[in-house]
């Protein structure tokens, strides 16, 4: 039985076993790839839809703020009628279609493609059709940077709408500058439009500093005075912790302790054990599984703690399934997921066009969307359209003009800016907007109050307008 050396026969058996393992693993991997989400491939879709009746005309009056002093008013008209023709304007989307942020990737890409579909059905941009080119980041920085180059150098896109992942955004910013392409990131780390940004980076959504500043006064008023912060241990979490510690004392709050927890931690108990007894409220920044682990263990061990978190925590999760553990929590949202909490005609029409139901799910599939984030891609598409039409965009050579047009642009609430009024600050290319304080009641995210744009404005630390193109 005990052979000192494997015989030829044994060696053959081993070889065959290894090959079979390899083949099965390969098939498994292939299956996995195909069922998870679309495999990393290029989706090039040009939507040519029959234009609806000539009566469908939407008119929007908008104000553009150039620096803080001069104001000019333009009228933007989207008319159904002319079918776009000529060479397409290409918009690249660096989407997190697979990996940890796949839920965001799916939702963001859905909303963006609906926006492009809408634009093409209403005459395109400057009469030209818009083509969406999607590349999958796999939620990995290394993959994303090469996909960023692929979009620009191989697909020759005119503009890139970026990933939801702040790390990817930061890594892609220098590439945007190097290849002289406008990059619209949708991640939320502060640095993206501060130390880590440049003139080619234009953020059309909020960032962590803005979020924390917007919400802090009400958090201290409604939730608690003595706080503990608990965040996921990477850039986005740190950003939340730092900003909360920065602003809480200014409004009479006190942070007793700050705890950082690695992403995907199996057991939150050792971290929860570190929370001081006298803490009244917990401000936390986690998402998906980490968030679920935290609230359940928190509910068991420290049910006295009042919770406050950014919408990123319950995003993509049906809060009605969370039960007692999340009941009564305060959530700062960028856009209410329930129609009932922000029932505007624009929001109704937006949901109708995108196929989103009243609870923020995709009506066709029942999939939970990340609507409180994905609205930003809808608005980015229409901001681009407006700026491109203003400068009469011809080719990528016009990128500097496009950036100048966007610098300081402001938007009124409309179908195209469904989240509400906002403006892009010229110096740091950061957008300032309203926020929504929500509270969980019977599992539903109910609106407590709308926090106006002014509450979120902070002093800029950079001035990109001094950078040459």
């Amino acid at each position, binding site marked *: 039985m005990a052979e000192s050396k494997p015989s030829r026969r044994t060696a053959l058996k081993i070889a065959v076993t290894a090959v079979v*393992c390899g083949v099965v693993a390969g098939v498994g991997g292939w*299956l996995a790839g195909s069922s998870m989400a679309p495999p990393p491939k290029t989706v090039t879709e040009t939507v040519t839809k029959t234009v609806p009746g000539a009566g469908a005309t939407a008119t929007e009056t908008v104000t553009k703020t150039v620096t803080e002093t001069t104001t000019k008013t333009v009228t933007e008209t989207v008319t159904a009628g002319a079918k776009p023709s000529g060479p397409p304007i290409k918009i690249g989307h660096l989407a997190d279609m697979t990996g940890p942020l796949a839920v965001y990737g799916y939702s963001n890409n859905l909303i963006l493609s609906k926006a492009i579909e809408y634009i093409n059905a209403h005459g395109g941009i400057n009469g030209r059709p818009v083509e969406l080119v999607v590349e999958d980041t796999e939620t990995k920085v290394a993959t994303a940077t090469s996909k960023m180059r692929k979009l620009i150098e191989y697909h020759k896109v005119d503009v890139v709408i970026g990933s939801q992942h702040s790390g990817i955004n930061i890594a892609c910013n220098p590439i945007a500058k190097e290849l002289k392409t406008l990059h619209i990131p949708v991640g939320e780390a502060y640095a993206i439009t501060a130390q880590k940004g440049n003139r080619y980076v234009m953020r059309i959504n909020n960032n962590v500093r803005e979020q924390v500043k917007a919400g802090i006064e009400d958090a201290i008023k409604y939730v608690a005075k003595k706080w503990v912060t608990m965040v996921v241990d990477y850039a986005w979490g740190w950003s939340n912790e730092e900003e909360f510690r920065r602003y809480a004392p200014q409004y009479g709050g006190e942070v007793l302790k700050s705890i950082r927890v690695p992403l995907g931690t199996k057991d939150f108990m050792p971290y929860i054990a570190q929370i001081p007894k006298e803490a009244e409220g917990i401000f936390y920044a986690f998402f998906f599984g980490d968030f*679920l682990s935290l609230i359940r263990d928190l509910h068991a061990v*420290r049910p006295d703690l009042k919770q406050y978190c950014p919408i990123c925590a319950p995003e993509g999760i049906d809060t009605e399934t969370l039960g007692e553990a999340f009941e009564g929590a305060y959530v700062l949202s960028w856009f209410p997921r329930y129609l009932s909490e922000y029932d505007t005609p624009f929001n109704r029409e937006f949901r109708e066009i995108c196929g989103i139901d009243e609870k923020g799910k995709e009506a066709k599939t029942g999939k939970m969307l990340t609507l409180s984030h994905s609205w930003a891609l809808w608005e980015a598409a229409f901001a681009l359209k407006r700026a491109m039409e203003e400068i009469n965009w011809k080719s990528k050579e016009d990128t500097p003009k496009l950036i100048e047009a966007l610098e300081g642009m402001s938007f009124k609430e409309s179908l195209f800016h469904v989240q509400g009024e906002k403006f892009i600050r010229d110096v740091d290319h950061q957008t300032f907007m309203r926020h929504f304080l929500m509270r969980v009641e019977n599992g539903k995210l109910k609106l407590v109050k709308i926090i106006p744009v002014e509450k979120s404005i902070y002093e800029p630390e950079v001035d990109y307008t001094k950078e040459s193109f």
Partner: protein
Amino acid sequence: MVPLGAEFASRFLFVLVNGFVWALIVALVALGLSFIFGLMDIVNIAHGDLYMLGAVLTWYGLAATGNFWLGVILATAVVGVLGIGLERGALRPVEGMPAYTVVVTIGISYILQQVVLAVFGGSPQKMSDPFPMVIEFLGVRYPGYRILVAGVSGIALLALWFLLFKTSVGLWIRATMQDREMANAMGISVNNIYAMTFALGAALAALGGALASPIVQVFYLMGYDLLVLVFIIVIVGGLGSLKGTMVAALIICPLESVMTLFVTPTEARVISFLVMAAVLLVRPQGLFKAWR
């Protein structure tokens, strides 16, 4: 600075209890690994994935039957049967050659992960608490389910001990562990013992996963995190020594847990590695010697 006083005492008690709860779950998984290595010389890299499979199947079992405990039993049984298949189908040709078993079990590991990714999906799932009771002791609140899990793990470990030391099957297993040729000569069907051992080891991993599933996030890569810890425990305890594995689990998990009072949990894991390195320097064979 060391915080002292009543609050420190209650936090100490809390993390200590938590450490012991984990020790019992991890001991189940580690014993399976140690068992398989001790008897068959198989370094089972897929052990973490069998743990993961236990959790995933419990998730499905719960969804299908509505009863968590039924899910635990089903998951354990299914993975046990799968263990027989793996031993017969993939591992038998390489048994006795540990280096080859690493390659084969890595293959099995990838297959299990990718199949779960394909079927279960890539996002972590959180199970509802099957026993939503909170135990309050000396002003410390602790989830009742975790205490229950510790109890169930303890019972499973006792049952394993009974099987190994009080039944004839256990005698055959131990005999095969000590000297497989002699056992064979004495009329013990070594092949059947092998299949049974692997199945038992796999089932222990699955039981660990099933019991841990409401505590952790059910995720297709959840085995990785645990596999590292389990290897530390098995190596510190002495490869193939069941007593050593048990003792190491009961030392390392509470130690790591208590260390979190003073350092971050990530640094506590580093300390576990240092303990392993120190033990291996002094006793390269581990704390206890294997039976063989």
